[in-house]
């Protein structure tokens, strides 16, 4: 089966769900090598002079999936393109529709939860705050026996 694949250049981090794709191109007449998985297909296309090195990403409409181009090789007038599915980009909409318990987040966070990533210097910052200085008036206190000092013999 011959099909057309869209080629892109991807600069986004692998962990980015929605990649920013540039330098869009198209490659017609691509066929899938038999016995390859839909998750990591190997494509074969006649070498018609297309500069494949400018692409590292593609979309195969027949599979409704985005792929990383993991390797490109040339042999006997054919270009062989090894791909690996990008599940984040391929299912970006469905992933965004997921409801989940978020472990860490950039903005939806609670700073009062203990963070194992906290790091601090070995020394600390000391702050001193004083109460009112109330014990500064010295007085003698003389205690004697008996009312008026009276004692009975």
């Amino acid at each position, binding site marked *: 089966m011959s099909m057309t694949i869209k080629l892109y250049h991807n600069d986004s981090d692998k962990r980015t769900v929605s990649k920013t794709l540039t330098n869009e191109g198209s490659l017609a007449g691509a066929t899938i090598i038999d016995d390859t998985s839909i998750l990591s297909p190997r494509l074969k296309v006649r070498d018609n002079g297309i500069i494949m090195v400018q692409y590292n990403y593609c979309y195969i409409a027949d599979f409704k999936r985005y792929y990383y181009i993991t390797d490109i090789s040339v042999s006997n007038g054919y270009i062989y393109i090894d791909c690996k599915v990008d599940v984040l980009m391929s299912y970006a909409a469905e992933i965004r529709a997921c409801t989940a318990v978020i472990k860490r987040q950039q903005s939806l966070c609670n700073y009062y939860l203990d963070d194992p990533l906290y790091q601090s210097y070995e020394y600390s910052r000391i702050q001193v705050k004083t109460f009112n200085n109330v014990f500064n008036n010295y007085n*003698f206190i003389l205690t004697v026996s008996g009312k008026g000092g009276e004692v009975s013999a």
Partner: protein
Amino acid sequence: MSANYDVSYFIGCTNVYHGTTDSILIPGANNNEISSMPTVTYLNGGTFLSAATVAEFRAAGALSENDSTPTGILPLYVMEDNRGNDIYIGLYASLNSSGYINNLTLCASKDTTYSNVYTRTSSGLSTPMIEGGENIYFYMSLQYASGGVLLPNFCLGRTYSRTPVSYGEWVSRWTGNPTQVGYVYSQLKITAWASGASVGEDSFEKIAQTSEEGGGDGDYDTTNTTTEFPTLPTLSVIGTGLVNVWNPSAYDISLLNNWLWRDTSIFENAKNIIDSPLQLITSLRILPLSPVVGEEEHFCLAGQDSAINMHPVTQQYIAIDCGSIAINEYFGSALDYGAYTKIKIFLPFIGFKELSPDDCMGGSIALRYNIDVVTGDCVACIKCIRTGGGLSNVLYTYGGNMAYDVPLSSLNFSAKNKADVANTVGLVSGIMSQNPTSVISSAMGIMTNKPTLERASDMKGNTGFLGNKQPFIVIERPIQSLPANSGQFFGYPSNITSRLGDLNGYTEVDHIIETNIHCTLDEWEEINELLKEGVYL
């Protein structure tokens, strides 16, 4: 609640609902079309699987135990694709470490082995399913693949319709792309989890149920009863006639001294019971405060009027308010609390005491001394006030003594010396406790493991009189080492349930609660792994 049922013994697949079988002609790739329903042959003796035990799964090689890969499928039915190839639909399951089937996978394979799988979809089995006999729906459709080959595609539904749906609904619900759909074929309902009738059918070792329900019945009552500073005692020795307390000046003391030793007549009344006029004096102390006194009057001793004017002390107990200190959060995070920030308070005549940041952070602490003027005994009361938490309570109370005892006789002096030595030893041991060796040996430890240092010894009485007499607090905060923009790369702790589409930036998922991703099992596992490791939304 069927707590005694062991779900691992039974899986019932009671029904297959077929979707509409109206003649459908959908243009597919390369004009390959299907217009009729493929032939279906039920396996297992011509009837649909009604019950499957663990033993049956195991016998079919369709059981994943100890992370093993199943080698077979428990067959349900077989059908032909549009090229005459068989598609075997079957189940395989996995056992968890407790021996329970915790995952069930519907699989489409080219044969009855696991090695030629078209597609599969799994359902993790959760407690409500186990207890409630809840249904799982596997929806299967057929769609064109490359070359016009008809392939099965599974979708998993648990909360969607449990009755057959029309083809149109299928298209809109599951695919959103009709050109990829060849036929909606069937829905498989799996039900009757943990049927009591099936318990014991299998020879698989039962796991004894030892857990019982419990907990969760707290009243969540957070109402707080305020505790104020303790009131002063109302019963006093002053005024009883047993003792008389004066507030002389230094000059008065000098006059008194002259009078005591020069006018021997004052002993005439007591010469049979005392050896020295000083024995009539119970104590002479210096206190760092102003007592409550009455109008001046002549000091009398042993019935003799000294003609020395002194103020009599009229109140044995007094309270001295030291004010309050606001303790604000510095970081606005966990760093202000717990193991990170330490707060100590210096209490004159008592010493250093540690306060919990949880008690006062974001609020204030107020300090008051209740003092017995006669003995010099004092109690420092610390009230913690946190508006946000509704806290306004005296949570700390420490005792001490703030009197400097003036030795009036050799006996007094000897006793005072012993007390001074004892306090000095305490002071030295307090300093020694700041052992530099221990600090060095702990240098590799994190801050929370730092040794707790004593900053002062027992400061009671005469020792405290020589020390600092202004109370203060020492807040020891960590100095955070925070790389620039770390939140963008690592995020911060969240533990909040949210729809991922409502978030932006770095996100780590603890676990997914609700999802509707139609993908292969391997893709799902990769998505799950990536979300747990952190992605950028």
